[in-house]
């Protein structure tokens, strides 16, 4: 009995963690191999091997370019974005004690969009980093507004409080989306407007390697911060006051974790637009699979988020032949029913 207890919290069921890199590599390979142009898997692997410096075969330059510059970069960014968004959802759900919390539903994505579009249209600095900074400012503004509105409306914890903050999030989303539309209508040229609208729906089409220079460190940072705070996230199970009485520095933890979630969302929005529901679906699915303890939940959520978004991206490219759907359409098709299920289960509690 004691021996079993001893393994429980230290190393129990950690074996699957060793599988995580393999699963991730498999998903990336799948994302790279599937696309509009049929390229044999052998060619894909050959190109990847040569590019990684593991051989020197003669490559078809078009195949090589499609695989390396378009598909692999896109799959890598999708994986990082999925992990970032899923971890953001996990963090927000734990800290707000709200099963419906998620960057998209809380209006954080909409605020980030407004921030990014403002920077893009105004042409401040231009480029990914300044757009990310604008998105981050927008994300934080949106979260502050939504949290203040929820507090003013008397939102607490539990299902009723959960409803209040989601309503506040909807109000925030609507307002920021309207602001975005206003900015586009007012200031953008027709060509700019078309590009921005396409990007806003959540789209990975324009992703190239430079995007991964931001996306990869962001995903790593989000994973690191969440893992570092795994016990703190656990401690919120009985509420913020209980967490404080267990020795958690509330102010520091909330600022750091919500800041990380907002930053991760902002970076993803500035790369690929607002992709919804990843942060809702993935953490809930992982809670069912690995349980509520964050030491396991955090890596599982990051991995599943990465795989989910790579697969969603693949589906968005092949579900209608000859046409690429915005990836946000696919995640919403999966996510909206999941949202309904969580809501109904919450009611029964």
């Amino acid at each position, binding site marked *: 009995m004691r021996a079993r*207890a001893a393994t429980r919290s230290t190393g129990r069921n950690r074996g699957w963690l060793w599988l995580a890199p393999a699963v991730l590599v498999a998903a990336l390979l799948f994302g790279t191999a599937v696309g509009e142009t049929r390229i044999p898997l052998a060619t894909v692997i050959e190109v990847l091997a040569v590019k990684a410096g593991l051989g020197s075969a003669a490559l078809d330059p078009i195949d090589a370019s499609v695989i390396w510059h378009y598909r692999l970069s896109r799959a890598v960014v999708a994986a990082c974005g999925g992990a970032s968004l899923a971890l953001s959802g996990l963090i927000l759900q734990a800290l707000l004690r709200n099963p419906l919390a998620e960057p998209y539903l809380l209006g954080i994505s909409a605020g980030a969009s407004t921030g990014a579009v403002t920077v893009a249209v105004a042409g401040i600095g231009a480029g990914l980093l300044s757009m990310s900074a604008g998105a981050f400012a927008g994300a934080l503004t949106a979260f502050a507004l939504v949290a203040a509105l929820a507090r003013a409306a008397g939102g607490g914890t539990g299902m009723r409080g959960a409803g209040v903050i989601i309503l506040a999030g909807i109000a925030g989303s609507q307002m920021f989306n309207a602001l975005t539309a206003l900015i586009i209508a007012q200031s953008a040229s027709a060509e700019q407007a078309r590009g921005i609208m396409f990007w806003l729906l959540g789209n990975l089409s324009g992703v190239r390697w430079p995007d991964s220079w931001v996306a990869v460190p962001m995903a790593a940072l989000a994973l690191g911060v969440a*893992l570092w705070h795994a016990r703190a996230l*656990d*401690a919120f*199970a009985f509420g913020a*006051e209980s967490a*404080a009485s*267990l020795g*958690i520095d*509330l102010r520091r933890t909330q600022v750091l974790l919500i800041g990380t979630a907002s930053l991760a969302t902002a970076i993803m929005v500035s790369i690929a637009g607002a992709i919804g529901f990843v942060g809702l679906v993935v953490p809930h699915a992982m809670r069912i699979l690995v349980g509520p303890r964050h030491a396991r939940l955090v890596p599982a959520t990051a991995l599943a988020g990465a795989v989910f978004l790579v697969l969603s991206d693949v589906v968005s490219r092949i579900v209608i032949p000859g046409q690429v759907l915005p990836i946000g359409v696919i995640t919403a098709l999966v996510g909206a029913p999941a949202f309904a299920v969580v809501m109904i289960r919450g009611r029964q509690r």
Partner: protein
Amino acid sequence: MTPILEAVGASHAVRGREILSDISLRLHPGETLGLIGPNGSGKSTLMGMMAGLLRPSRGEIRLEGRPMARLGRRQIARRLALVAQSAETAERITVRDAVELGRTPWLGPLRPWGAQDDDAVAAALDAVDMAHMAGRDWASLSGGERQRVHIARAHAQAPRVLLLDEPTNHLDIHHQIAILDLVAQLSVTTVIALHDLHHALRCDRIMVLRAGRCVALGPPMEILTPALIREIFAVEAEIIPHPGGGRPVFAFQRLA
């Protein structure tokens, strides 16, 4: 001797209005102090302040002689545990998960779970007689079982001071007695907010609060006179000696 927990003229104000005024108290190691008072008299506020969760607007709280304001949350949590009123969760955690939370102040990213943590959790589960239910889901527990798990969680925290905010609320009489017996056998300094005056008789000392002020502080049999009970709770009380030599019982009647 330094008191283990001390309030010095501690007050708490919300939007400029004092809801707790000039509370002074020296808690000695090992004693059990009962907090008594009508609803809204400031018991929970005093608990929160003694737990370091609320900052005094005037005066200060000292833990082992050191001002609470200068201690970090972790340092406080290693010395003092709080069982708040009806803390609930929607997470699908087990009894053991909930008790393991008590080890949080002793753990960190660089100080992983170890054998002594397992021992602390096992001892805590034993103390509340919940070891056989360690694998049960939180959602499947009764109110009394949940309260016992909260106390086990506090026990696993290995505190020197245990604060309990109305731990017998909403429990049937059997579980009320069981919880009080359980708390009495824990060898920590305890502050316990209570509504039932019979339960208060079990404490070493009681503090009576009314409208945020300390009205009386001392051994329960000296404090709980019919005159004080009439003044504080607006009921007529008669104290009836126990025929078997146990603690007396109160008979209450509305004021005429």
